[in-house]
């Protein structure tokens, strides 16, 4: 988001953020839910459609900008962060949202994802992770689990998957959050990302109904969700299972562990209070394996630092101080000499 010059909040409704274009995702695709969550959230943020830009790469998720009534730029595969950087440096007043996927953002565009996070460009990065290449018909992706059967891996994939949140943290991200397409909590995650000044990285698990159906059901299914989802809230204990279980620090092994909480006495069980600025805990949370642990969701890490565009434009402004842009003087800079006219008069 932008708060360099606070933007007047604009009154809009969900309808104002819908375009007249027919949405072309497969029926039942998780992208629909994410689109609605975003369109529902933008009015609550007071966002101005004229000052909002959605920038995307290539893939199913990257069609997103066509369906949001704001400025939108559907660019080339993997490069959305670079376009966003140019847009934001040219006009820092724009609210820039990046839409990418696991193939676009972690494979072909991994380089740019790293650098936009490292530089801390002030923008929201939504990475739709469906663990598959959907638009090209189902090849395995860099986040596909080992053994994934796909047209290019008929015997199962052998390479280990990348973890987007761990990657983001390693690249220097100052805001990391997780959600999933049909989650009711997704708007609150988006709001937290918008409130963060700097690159806000959000991994959104998204169900690819055609090529990787129900891949996230084990934690996303409503039934038993309380045991399989850990919703992290700043300043609150890391509890799940309706408060019967929590996450504590195994001081000996320097890892996290699941502990039972008796009678709501989470302090006695040693459950950690979520400090969103604690980078060490963030490292453990992004690596926390689902299975032995619940899936960590919500805001995992949030500790702002100065943004890239503030640094660049601030330095530029400083270097311009007291200087006059005189093109004539610039052209005549350095050691010059004068050729007189034929009568010997100086030119």
């Amino acid at each position, binding site marked *: 988001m932008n708060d360099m010059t606070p933007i007047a909040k604009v009154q809009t409704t969900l309808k104002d953020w819908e375009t007249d274009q027919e949405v072309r995702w497969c029926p039942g695709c998780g992208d629909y839910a994410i689109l609605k969550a975003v369109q529902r959230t933008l009015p609550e943020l007071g966002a101005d459609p*004229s000052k909002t830009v959605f920038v995307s790469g290539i893939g199913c998720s990257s069609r997103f900008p066509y369906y949001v009534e704001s400025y939108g730029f559907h660019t080339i595969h993997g490069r959305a962060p670079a376009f966003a*950087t140019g847009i934001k440096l040219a006009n820092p007043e724009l609210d820039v949202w990046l839409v990418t996927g696991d193939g676009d953002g972690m494979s072909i565009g991994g380089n740019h994802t790293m650098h936009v996070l490292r530089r801390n460009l002030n923008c929201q990065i939504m990475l739709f992770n469906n663990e598959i290449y959907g638009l090209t018909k189902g090849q395995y992706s860099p986040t596909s689990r080992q053994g994934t059967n796909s047209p290019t891996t008929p015997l199962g994939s052998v390479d280990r998957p990348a973890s987007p949140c761990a990657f983001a943290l390693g690249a220097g991200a100052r805001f990391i959050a997780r959600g999933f397409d049909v989650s009711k909590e997704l708007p609150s995650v988006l709001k937290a990302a918008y409130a963060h000044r700097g690159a806000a990285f959000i991994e959104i698990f998204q169900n690819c109904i055609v090529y990787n159906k129900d891949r996230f059901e084990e934690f996303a299914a409503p039934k038993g969700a309380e045991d399989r989802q850990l919703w992290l809230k700043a300043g609150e204990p890391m509890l799940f299972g309706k408060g019967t279980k929590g996450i504590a620090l195994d001081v000996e092994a320097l890892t996290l562990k699941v502990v039972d909480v008796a009678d709501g006495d989470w302090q006695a069980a040693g459950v950690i209070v979520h400090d969103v600025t604690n980078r060490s805990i963030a490292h453990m949370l992004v690596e926390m394996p689902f299975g032995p642990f619940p899936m960590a969701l919500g805001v995992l890490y949030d500790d702002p630092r100065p943004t890239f565009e503030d640094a660049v434009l601030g330095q530029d402004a400083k270097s311009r101080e007291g200087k006059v842009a005189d093109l004539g003087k610039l052209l005549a800079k350095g050691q010059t000499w004068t050729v007189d006219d034929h009568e010997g008069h100086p030119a």
Partner: protein
Amino acid sequence: MATQLADPKVQSTNAPESVVVRFAGDSGDGMQLTGGQFTLSTALSGNDLATFPDFPAEIRAPQGTLFGVSAFQINFGSTEIDTAGDAPDVLVAMNPAALKTNVQALKPGGLIIADTGEFSKRNLEKAKYDVSPLEDGSLARWQLLAFDISALTLESVKPFGLGNKEALRCKNMWTLGLALWMFDRDRAPLIDWLKGKFAKNPVLADANIAALNAGHAYGETAELGGQIKKVHLDPVASPPGLYRTVTGADAVALGLVAGAQLADLPMFFGGYPITPASSILHSLVRLKEFGVTTFQAEDEIAAICASIGASYAGQLGVTSSSGPGIALKGEAMGLAVMTELPLVIVNSQRGGPSTGLPTKTEQSDLYQAVYGRNGDAPIPVVAARSPSDAFDCAIEACRIAVQYMTPVILLTDGYIANAAEPWKVPDPATFTPFPVSFLQEKNAGDTLLPYKRDEKGARPWIKAGTPGLMHRIGGIEKAVDTGHLDYSSENHQAQTDARKAKIDGIAKSIPAQEVTLGTAGGKLAVVGWGSTYGPIHQAVRRARAKGQDASHIHVRHIWPLPENLGELLKGYDRVLVPEMNTGQFKTVLRDQYLVDAKPLTKTSGQPFTIAEIEAAIEGALS
């Protein structure tokens, strides 16, 4: 060459019209710096000049080796100079390797100045000499002046208490001092420059000045056996005005700044380090007060993508690279074509393919510029012919980009980027502005049509952030007018045709092709583009002086070509196209006009000599 011969004066008697000097030494010897300073003193004395820096790709190649030799050639004179000269009159060789790699180029009877202090057994071995060439008579074709510059330098800087290594670093200044004496040059600007350069270390400044003075005094007083004489070249007769020297890289940077001002836009420059293009970014980072934002991206692709993003947000996006980097930018160029956003792409060409010859010059990216993208993706191409011409070409590239809403490629090359020449400083008041107007409200009643074209075929420029003009763009085919996604066959046909017509139409906005030297029609047209200007021009001049019917046509607008070029070429019996590639522009001309253009090609990493083209003219006319 920037200056034009106005009123040739009578030359001083017995003085040559021009002299070619080549400084050659180890890449750590400071030859480029010596050459650069000699260039400046030459310019200040009013001679016309052209230079050719030629250095290895390695920053500090192993000392004394043949591949570590760095050379700087300058051609200067009291007459119009267009090239760095075919063959040197004087070779300054700072070590055996420099002598070995350069002496064959020296004119018969030319002068070799060699530092005997560096002709040790070890250095001779490194240069693969069995015996010292200074002693075995193998240099008999030339005049040889060999003396111990190293020792003389050490002696001259003794009072400053420098270590041996540091003291020897002053050798280049000693040599420069001698050269200044030979050509009757003022030392004062050099002394001022040294004081500035070593402001933080006055001892080094004093030592270098002492070495410079000692070299000069050596020429003045030493018994040189009458081998070298002081030569004075009169100033060239140039139109009156203020002059400076400029390299192509500087001229591009200045031209882009001027172009952005004329378009009334801030400029966004996205770049990634690559030889020989980096110096444009180096120049622009220091010009922030001209509304320039620079961005060193993580790679070539990000550099162009960020620049397109900036154009989308209403700035003039510019990116720059050399061949390998331009290849990486290809896909993004296609997006700029499809989204019809202005963008300037500068390609400082070098030898290819692949990494090729990073520090050597070539013109082999013409196909890449004109044709090198997927799909039918026409992009206008402008090519600079000399360092100072790069200034005008950069402005022209900016103009086309904003007036036609298109990416534009500006071609220079390693030779133009690094070479320096005198430049008559232009007066900005004489430039024609081309201010941009952004679309501020819906352009079809209550409807916004982002792809509604004007009479030139250009769509409106809608700055992201403009109230009420929200719209979506991208790489998928755009519906006519609305810009919505549209894969239909009739729409793709219509938009492909429209994009082509728009770029073809640029030809209406460019000047008719002129004959650079000679006549419209005749026996032979020598058609060039880019940095071959100098040698072609001089070769045609010599041919015409011999009474041969040859004319020089030099093309700036490579794509689209000037509207009259086809007719013009058909007026000649023969067309010869010299270029530093295997015949790329020749192919374009044959394709466009069905003319029987014949190639004259060279891909040695070195510019054409005048003699090479002169011989080809001779051959074509016989």
